[in-house]
């Protein structure tokens, strides 16, 4: 990867729940709040729809970071989906560490539909952190 001259631009896959975080992203857009374009958003109905295999798939295909967005605990549209999502993501994070993939590459945020600004801010923060971390070790494969 000969990108010494250009700054490294991480590729982020974002999987966000329809009711909260995806709506927050919409809100950030309609509010004209800026955030980096590195993230590609995928909408699911609930954060618990996210099979850890999706995250592994994204990483294995070269994503530098994966962003998961769901409803605040207690606010899940389906009552308790986000609790399952939390456990899955946290357990996956520990396993990624064993795989030699920095746990910081997986980010879980609760953003309600009203938190457009928070969404923009956390995505910006995540992008900057990934720039520091550098490309995913799986990129070279």
């Amino acid at each position: 990867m000969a990108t010494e001259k250009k700054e490294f631009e991480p590729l982020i896959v974002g999987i966000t729940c329809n009711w909260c975080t995806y709506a927050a992203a919409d809100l950030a857009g309609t509010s004209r709040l800026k955030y980096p374009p590195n993230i590609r958003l995928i909408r699911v109905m609930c954060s618990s729809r996210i099979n850890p295999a999706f995250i592994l798939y994204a990483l294995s295909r070269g994503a530098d970071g994966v962003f998961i967005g769901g409803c605040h605990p207690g606010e899940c549209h389906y009552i308790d989906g986000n609790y399952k999502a939390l456990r899955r993501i946290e357990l996956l994070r520990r396993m990624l560490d064993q795989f030699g993939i920095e746990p910081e590459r997986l980010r879980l945020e609760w953003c309600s539909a009203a938190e457009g600004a928070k969404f923009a801010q956390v995505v910006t923060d995540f992008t900057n952190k990934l720039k520091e971390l550098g490309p995913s070790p799986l990129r070279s494969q």
Partner: protein
Amino acid sequence: MGEEKGKKKIKLAFYWAATCGGCDVATLDIEEKILDVVSIADIVLWPVAMDFKYKDLEAMAPKSIDVCVWNGACRLSEHEELAKLLREKSKVLIAYGACAAFGGIPGLANVSNKEEIFKIVYQDTATTVNPDFVTPQEELVTDGGDKLTLPEFWNTVKSLDQVVDVDYYVPGCPPQLDTNLAMVGALANFVATGELPPKGAIIGASDKCLCEECPRKREEGKMIERIYRPYELKEVDPEKCLLDQGLLCMGIATRGGCGAKCPSVNMSCRGCYGPSSQVRDHGAAFLSALASILGKKTETEMIGEGTAEEVKELLDQVKDPLGTFYRFSLPISMLKRVQLKEKKG
């Protein structure tokens, strides 16, 4: 043996790669039925047992072997060479056993690489006396002028289908009796009728998870709050589900077909029959299912456990996610191997 059935015998070949030999031994557990196999097949290749030369194999016509049963994972250059050769010479190639099908236990070496393994095996282990750090060489000329070679040791272990095209899979470490009988049955059927199962089929295993077979009784809707390491639970109820009792059991994410032998002696499943067809990544499937049922409260009482810190105590009980969830299937997982830090820079 030597019985003529009026039908031509098929040509059967067995080969082994990075293996322990258990698959060959397991085949013998079909006991006297081994004689039935010999009556329908001429074994043309079996390094453990029969007159076999690599040159003989090379001289065989393409597709002249009807069925080749391959056990073992691929981790040396020699394995790849033989895999390609046997694929060319065989009509049907079966990945037999967990190692060939998923990478198996040798696949756990994907947590490491050649450099690390050599350093530990040939330098760091407690009994090794090797001050000059001599290591096996792929090519070497001795002081006497003799040229010797060894096959190349790869960094990454592969399943057979990551090296060549595979027709069928027989899972298990080793495949258990019913699975082996199913394979013998498929061979016999092939000899009698010429029919084969659809390509890619898993022979001798169910597409449902092990729980369907396991006689233990499950409690509906139970959450697991405490995970026990096997030595921490002195009294294991022989009737109740092991996962319900807090022993991590991979049966919920693993194919059935083995008869739940390990649970029958109070030991939980570790997944040697591999993932079902419904699952893309064995470890991720188990991780997801386990995380779903891990919790202090029932589903309707979970309010208040919404942060990583709160679930930390729960998750700390899962000691070795990678090594437990991918015990037999690391090479075929999505990530395939551990990313090791570069030594330099």
